[in-house]
């Protein structure tokens, strides 16, 4: 049941990313190009996603536990340190270089093009390297 729920939510998330245009790197780069020919569309994606999630979270967290688990697993880390900001900075550089972030590229790699496969392989190599450092 839990496995199926992850699979199903993965599909819903993928549909959201495709509908919103996040799987089109050129569009993403156009959104990030605020000093050029700026395309503001993706700001609406972010706005709608945050609004929906904020309302959803408020309602769900009134429950004592989730449906399929005994307790919630919310992040507990509170520290804002160099590691957080350096990591976010590196992530932004990669995102801005080609227009892919992790969710959209894992959706777009289903086209099995050389470029998306190269990005995904390098991303997993990055996960692995960073895991060693920890």
């Amino acid at each position, binding site marked *: 049941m839990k496995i199926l729920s992850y699979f199903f939510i993965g599909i819903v998330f*993928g549909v959201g990313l*495709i509908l919103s245009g996040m799987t089109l790197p050129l569009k993403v*780069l156009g959104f990030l*190009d605020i000093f050029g*020919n700026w395309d503001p569309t993706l700001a609406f994606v972010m706005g709608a996603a*945050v609004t929906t*999630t904020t309302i959803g979270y408020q309602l769900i*967290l009134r429950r004592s536990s989730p449906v399929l688990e005994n307790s919630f697993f919310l992040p507990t880390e509170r520290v804002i340190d160099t590691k957080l900001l350096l990591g976010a900075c590196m992530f932004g550089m990669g995102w801005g270089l080609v227009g892919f972030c992790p969710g959209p590229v894992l959706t777009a790699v289903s*086209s099995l093009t050389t470029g998306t496969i190269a990005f995904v392989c*390098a991303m997993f190599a990055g996960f692995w390297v960073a895991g060693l450092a920890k």
Partner: protein
Amino acid sequence: MYILQYSNAILGGATIGLAASLLLLLNGRVLGISGIAANIISGQSYSRKYSISFVCGLFLAGWTAFTLIPGALADSPVTDLKILALAGLLVGVGTRLGNGCTSGHGVCGLSRFSKRSLFATITFMASAIATVYLTQHIWELGQL
């Protein structure tokens, strides 16, 4: 055309929010795709099979759209494999050091009013905007 563009953006964003809400409701977890994907390798956060299952769902959604709707997916305008690999590496290392990406910090973190996620989101947005500015307007690599 413009109305369709914005309505798809809002509908797509709401669907992303629905997925994030469902993961909290059913499994009690925040939807951070970099964390989910990295857990396939590390298996540290929870059982690998759940992460694999989630990514398979994402792949299936992509593959179905790719098969049925022309133009639903696209490659990066950057085609140099060295740059694609460098970008992938930066995204992989960066999201692990910073514990999240657009979904985990940008959507779920902001929705939980997390100050940590707010700082992370401002940082990666600024860094991405600066990177696009440098590559497009200063070095004129000319992809857009």
